[in-house]
Structure formats: C-alpha cells, structure tokens
C-alpha cells in the first residue's frame, strides 16, 4: 500500500465525536470509586467513634498523607496519557507525601518511648491492611485502565504504574477511616507496601493494555 492510499483511507474515515480524555478519566474515577466504596462497605466500614478520632493528629495525618499521594499521582497519570507530556515539575510533587511521612515518623520516634516502637509498627491489622488497600484499589485501577486505552502514553508501563499508585492512594484514603492503627510507624511501613503491590500490578497492566 502506498502512503497516499493510506491517507485517502484515513481522510475518508469519519471524524467521530471527539474523545475527551480528561472527561473519560473523570468518569472512570467515579465508577472506580463507587466500586471501592462498595467493597469498603462490604469488608470494613468506618471504625467506631469515627468523629472523636477525627480530632487526633495521628488519625488525620493518614488522610492528609493519602491525599497528598493520590492527587499528584492522578494528575501525572492524566498527563502521561498524552504523547507530548512534560511531566517533570509535577513529578516532584510526589516527594511531598514522602517528606510528610518521614517527618511524622521522626515525630513519633521522639514522642513515643523506645519499647513501644515495635508494637506500634506491627500494629493489629497489618495483613488486613495489605489486603484491603489493593482490593479497594482494584476497581479504580481497572476503570482507569479502560479510560487510559484512549490515550497514547509513550511509556505504557510507567503510566500504568502511576495509575496503580493513584488507585492505591485513593483506596488508602478510604481505608484510613477503618484502620485501627494510627501510628506513623505503622502507616509508613504497611501503606507503602500495599501501594507497591498496586504499582506493580499497574505497571504490568500498563505494559499489556496501554501500548499502541
């Protein structure tokens, strides 16, 4: 086939209703979050005396941290979905939640006596945390993947990994309201591990489904 012939076929192809990538991803987010909420209602639910705990710093920090991670990850995913993406400045924002987390760990180490460190790190609920975060992230990641197929990421695996990170961040935001362990020592250990699972799955899925 000659190129001029291909061009003839392409320009005869109807120009459909333009796809709005941003809108697609927004719709996917809503669908994914509904799924995550359903799983949340099914397996966890908020912990007792939720509103009283809201006044404690450790409890609130979990939400701030999850949100500070989910937001830049999501924006980066959105940007990487276009081939001419320039993500650099935005990527720096991913450092913010890490700094926050590290600072809160240092603070915790200062205010809590040494012999309590380990019990706070291990917590009561680590295995459930490792399971619940990826489980609630799954519908979000799946919906994002479907939406991102309309995109054209130059780095499919990286884009998928970031979609995984975003879904883990949003899932952690939900999960934090259930999890009985509030110590930054616990959060800095188990939440990132659960996130890594989602990032890995996202990278594999990205490589598989987002190449074009």
């Amino acid at each position: 086939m000659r190129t001029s012939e291909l061009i003839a076929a392409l320009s005869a192809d109807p120009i459909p209703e333009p796809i709005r990538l941003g809108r697609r991803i927004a719709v996917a987010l809503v669908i994914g979050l509904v799924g995550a909420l359903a799983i949340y209602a099914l397996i966890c639910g908020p912990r007792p005396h939720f509103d009283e705990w809201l006044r404690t710093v450790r409890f609130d920090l979990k939400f701030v941290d999850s949100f500070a991670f989910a937001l830049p990850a999501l924006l980066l995913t959105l940007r990487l979905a276009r081939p001419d993406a320039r993500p650099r400045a935005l990527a720096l924002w991913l450092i913010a939640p890490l700094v926050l987390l590290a600072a809160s760990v240092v603070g915790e180490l200062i205010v809590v006596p040494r012999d309590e460190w380990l019990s706070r790190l291990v917590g009561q609920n680590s295995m459930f945390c490792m399971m619940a975060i990826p489980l609630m992230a799954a519908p979000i990641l799946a919906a994002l993947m479907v939406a991102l197929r309309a995109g054209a990421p130059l780095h499919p695996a990286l884009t998928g990994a970031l979609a995984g990170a975003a879904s883990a961040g949003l899932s952690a935001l939900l999960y934090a309201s259930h999890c009985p362990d509030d110590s930054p020592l616990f959060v800095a250990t188990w939440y990132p591990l659960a996130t890594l699972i989602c990032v890995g799955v996202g990278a594999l899925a990205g490589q598989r489904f987002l190449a074009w």
Partner: protein
Amino acid sequence: MMRASIAGDEGAYRRLLEDLGRSVRGMARAAFARAGTGDADIEDAVQETLLAIHLKRHTWDAGQPLAPWVYAIARHKVVDTLRRRGRRRIEPLENFEEFLAAPEAEDPHALSDARKLLETLAPRQRDIVTSISLDGQSIAATAKRLKMSEVAVRVALHRALKSLGAAWRRSIG
C-alpha cells in the same frame, strides 16, 4: 489546520496528513540513516505514524503546538520500526520543526507491509479499505457497490483502520 480537520473538514484533513507524511518521511529517513539501516522500512514508519496520528488525534490538546505532539508520535513509531529490524536505539532528534519546513516527496514505488497486514482483515473490511484507498472510490460509491448504507461503510472503515493499527502492533511482537 488540525482544528479544522477535527471539526470534520475532510479536504483540510487530507492536506494535513499529506504534509505531515512528508515531514515524517524526512525525519524517518534521517533516523534510519543515523541507525545505519537501509531505506526499506521508512515507508512503514511513515504509515504507522500517520495511522497513529489518526487513531490518537484526540490526545492532541488544541491549546498546545502541533509539532511536538506529531514528533513524539513519529519518534515512538520510528523507534518501533527500527526495533523490529533489530536495532536498539536511535539518537533523539531536536530539530523536527525544520522537517516541517522542508517536506520530502514520497517515493512513488515505495510499498509497505501494510498490504500484508491488509490480508489479516476480515474480507468485508479489506474490501472497503482497498476500494477507498487503492481504487480511490468515494464512500458513497463503495456503499452503492457493496449495497451497504454509507454509515455502515464508514463504521466498517473505522473498525478496519483500528484493526490495522492492532495488527501492526502485534507484528512488533
């Protein structure tokens, strides 16, 4: 021009694709020369790029300049084509705008793998693509000949182009 094309101006879109095709050909030729490979697959890279531009045109943000977007896609596709030939890397090319300014003519004898890939399409789809692209028939004429509605021909053509893209991707393997 891309804006007019996305808005549905078929003639403008065709001229745009022809312009971009020439620019991409110049760029691909330079990249192939630098990689030290022959010219055989240049037309493949050009056609893959044009198809990708077509199928992914909604990822161009109308507020952004067109050249970096086209260049990113072209580079991606040229790298794919070179990789298929067993070459690992090409040097980045900084001056794509120059190629936009100095388009090259298509070699009238250049054929590509696309013909082979056409064989992988369903017969009806292949028929439609061939009649519109190779024989230069209009959508209306094709619809009449195949006793289909124009809308059905358009839908089938669109599906065929998408599966052509998928077949190309599989052939990278």
